[in-house]
Structure formats: C-alpha cells, structure tokens
C-alpha cells in the first residue's frame, strides 16, 4: 500500500543555513508517527512543508499521494492540522467554533460526538477563549478532526502543559488510533513519543539521526546496561574478580560497570559479595532510557 506521507531528499534552506538538510521519511496508514527533536532541529519546518504552508528548496514530498505545494480543497478535505500557535476563534463557543469549521468540509463528523471525543462535553457552550490552555488545545484537535481527515498533523500538542493536562491530551491522541487515523506528531518530549508513537524518527540539525520503534530506537535494545553499587569501607574496585574488573567504567565513590549480559555479571557480583560477607544496598541495574538514547543522538557536536 502507498505510504500516507513520503519524503525523499527534503531540503529547506534559509539564507546560508539548511534548516532541513536532506531527509527521507515514510509514514504508513494507521500509524502514529512521532517526529522527535530539540527546538530548532527542523521539525516545524518539515511539518509546515507537509501541511502546504512552506515551500521547499529541494526534494520529493507526497502527502496522501499529492504534493502539498499544490494541495487543493479536495486534498485539504483529507488532512487535518493542529498548529503549534493558533488561538481560539474570538467570540465563539466550543460548539459554535466546530459548527463554523464543520461548514468548511464536504463530509464533516458529528459535532457533539467530536466534542465528546476530546472530552469537552461540559464546556460545549463555553466561549472558546475562556478555556484553559489544555482545553483549548483539545478544541484544536477537535477542529482538526471535524472534517474527518485521514491524516492529522499535531505540532507539539502538549508544549507548556502541566502533567495532568498532558495525560488528558495523550488520552485524546491515543483515541485517534482507534478511529484509524494516521497521526504525524512532532514533539520535543521523549516520554510523549514513547507513550504515543508506533514509530519514532529523531531529527537533529536538520538530519534524521535515528529511526525505529520506541523499544529499538538508536539500538537501545542492544545497548549495554549499567551496573552501579557502592563498596564498603576498606574494599576497592581492585578487589573485584577479574571478570568484573574488565567491565569497570568508573569509580568515584560509586563503582560503575557496563555490561552486555547484565544477568550473568550481577550473578558473579552477588557470589563474590556473599563470599566476602558484604552487602551492596544501593545496587542498581539500569538499561538506557529513551531519554539517554535521545540525548546521545541529539548532542551538539563539541
């Protein structure tokens, strides 16, 4: 099946700088795809090219089989967009805002059902500008959804939210999956991508630096685990068995070992400690988090 979004060699140059420096991407139907990267990495530039708001310098782009630079009303009927910066319609209630937008589409969704979907039932007759930030963002999602699009762009949907508003927003976005929508999400929060996405691409400095599922991104599933513990007074890292000394990655009060086979090495450590009659109360075995991987991938070159 043809991908919903397909990008080949996309480049966008501002003056002397390539904001997007040649990227390739594909998003399949029904997928929640997260485009993850720090501020200024080229996320919004890319998504605005896909939405038809910006021209590109070079490359091939196809969204639902159409070049967004030439997207017509027919195409816009199939695409919804939650923009990064867009305020409420002044003077209109939640329901009236949706009535206004629903009139723009050929085959819109039911208005009350859409209000319920984003959890604004109780706010349906509240003036949109009086909503809280989180509620307003959910109204944005409803406005993007009212035309019943096949594909929805969400540009940093939870930036600036408190934790509970983020949870609610995530719940709404997760609900789009059940509707069978394809979602193109940009975010600079790893936990958001991990929570929502089927697949993640990380962009840094205008280039895709990694692509994968939340579990495998950047080789995370193959990365070494870290074993850390504090030895009691009078015992040093030199006293460890040779097998473990070989794994030594640091000793600054706390000993750090890196291991590709953490279970075997923790076993060896336990045997050694038991024979010596010492305990390791702060023993800690950690796999790299998505955040570790992400920070590693997006680290500015020195």
């Amino acid at each position, binding site marked *: 099946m043809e991908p919903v979004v397909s990008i080949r060699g996309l480049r966008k140059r501002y003056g002397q700088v390539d904001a997007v420096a040649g990227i390739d991407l594909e998003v399949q139907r029904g997928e929640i795809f997260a485009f993850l990267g720090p501020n200024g990495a080229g996320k919004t530039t890319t998504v605005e090219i896909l939405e038809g708001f910006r021209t590109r310098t070079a490359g091939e782009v196809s969204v639902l089989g159409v070049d967004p630079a030439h997207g017509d009303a027919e195409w816009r009927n199939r695409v919804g967009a939650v923009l990064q*910066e*867009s*305020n409420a319609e002044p003077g209109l209630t939640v329901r009236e805002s949706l009535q*206004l937008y*629903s009139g723009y*589409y050929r085959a819109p969704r039911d208005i009350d059902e859409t209000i319920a979907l984003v959890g604004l039932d109780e706010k349906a007759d509240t003036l949109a500008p009086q909503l809280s930030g989180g509620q307003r963002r959910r109204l944005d999602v409803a406005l993007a959804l009212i035309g019943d699009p096949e594909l929805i762009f969400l540009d940093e949907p939870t930036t600036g939210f408190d934790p509970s508003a983020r949870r609610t927003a995530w719940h709404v976005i997760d609900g789009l999956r059940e509707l069978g929508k394809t979602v193109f999400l940009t975010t600079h929060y790893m936990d958001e991508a991990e929570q929502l996405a089927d697949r993640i691409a990380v962009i840094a400095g205008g280039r895709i630096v990694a692509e994968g599922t939340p579990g495998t991104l950047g080789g995370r599933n193959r990365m070494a685990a870290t074993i850390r513990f504090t030895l009691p007074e009078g015992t040093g890292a030199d006293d460890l068995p040779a097998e473990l000394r070989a794994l030594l990655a640091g000793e600054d009060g706390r000993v750090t070992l890196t291991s590709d086979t953490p279970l075997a090495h923790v076993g060896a450590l336990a045997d050694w400690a038991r024979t010596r009659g010492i305990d390791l109360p702060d023993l800690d075995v950690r796999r790299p988090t998505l955040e570790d991987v992400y920070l590693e991938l997006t680290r500015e070159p020195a």
Partner: protein
Amino acid sequence: MTTAAARGPLGLVLHQARYDLLGFLRNRQGRFFTLVLPLLFLVIFISIFGNNKVGPGAGVAARTYYVPGISALAVIAASFVNLVITITVLREEGILKRRRATPVPAWVLIAGRTLMAIGVSLTSMVILMLLGRFAYGVRLPSHTIPGIAVTAVVGSITFCVLAYAFSTLIANEDAAQPMVQAVMLPLYFISGVFIPAVNLPGWLGHVAQVFPVEHLSDGLHHAFTPATTGVGIVWSDIGVLAVWAAIGLVFALWRFSWLPKAATG
C-alpha cells in the same frame, strides 16, 4: 444535515458571515467603536453646531449635515477600522492560518467578512438616521434611498478591501488600533465628516479629494440633501471609490499573508 460546503459557494459565504457577525456582536470593544461611538459623535456634533447653517447660499441646517457625515464614519468604522483590527488579531493569533488549513476558499472568507461589514454598516446608518429623525427632526429624503444605499454599499466594499490591504502594513495586534486611528482621524477632519468641507482652506480640500473618505462622505451628503433630485448617486464619487478598491485589491493580493508576521520573521 447538508453542510455549508455542500450548499455551494453562496451558502458558504452566508455561513461565514453568520459566524463573523456572532463573533463581532460578542466583542464589547468592537460593538462600542462600531455602533455606539458614531451615535455619540452625532449627538455631540448636533448639540454643538445643530442650529448653524452649512454650505453655500441658504445652506442646510448643521443637524441635517451631520447625519450623512457621521454615516460615512459609521461605514468606515464597520468596514475599515473594525476589520483591520480583526484581521491583525486573527492573523497574529494563528487563526487565519488554521482556517487556511481547511478546504474553505480564501475568497469565501473575505466575501463572508465583507458581507457582514456591509450589514453592520447599513444597520449603523439606519440607527443614525432614526436618531436624526426622531431626536432632531432631520427630514430624510425618500427618493434618494437608492443613492444612499448604493453609496454605502460601494463605500463598505471599498473600505473592506482597503482593510485587507492596510492590515499587511501592521506588525502586531497592539499597533492595529493606533495605526488605524492615525490614518483615519485626520481624514475625518478634512473630508467633511466632522467639519463641513466649505470651512477648509482650498488646498486642504484638494488633498482630501485624493482619498476615499471624502468621496464616501460627499456621496452620502449629496444623497441626503433635501434639494437633490433623482436617485442621488454621485457617479464621480462612486468612480473614485472603485479606483481605491482596485488599488487596495492589487496591494492586498500582492502583500496579504495568512501567517503571523511575528513567526515568519
């Protein structure tokens, strides 16, 4: 349910005009500047100058003079002042951009808003005429109603187009109100809105005639003058307004942006 989009372009224009009107009516500041302020001006000017005579020869009573003068101000308030501020706010808050992401054609958004401005302009004028008639006994010529209506509608369209053009020069929401007033206040003074044109030095009158305010004001004055014969349309005024509309259209098509200026910098 038939959607507005399915009813065709005209249905969609009416749909847009309806929600624009709703948004306008819920905006206290917009209501005050557009509907209340012209009434205050009419009361103030008639109270001060009401019994004077204006114009050559016997002239007309100033109270008769101020109904069309302030009507021109009302049309401009509803079409230009309110629209420039609204467009700037909608643009800077990303609302125009979000509308642009929907299938609605640009011309429908513009036509719907213009239709609303025409409706508000005519309503405001009717209120001014009723106030003039019943509070100050200003007689309204009935045979020139076509002239009054045509001039007001052409004026409203012209000032709407100019609002789209002028909004492109405004960088942010805070600058909208002062910039609009900086342009319009002097023009009100020299274009026969606040002060009868006969009281102006000749050169200032010539300056005023370059701009559209004078022609809207002149057209309405002519249509309101009891001595006017025929339907009361001054074609030269309509012509100048149309030229300004054309200039505004070209400029707006050239410079208009749906995206916030602050973000595109």
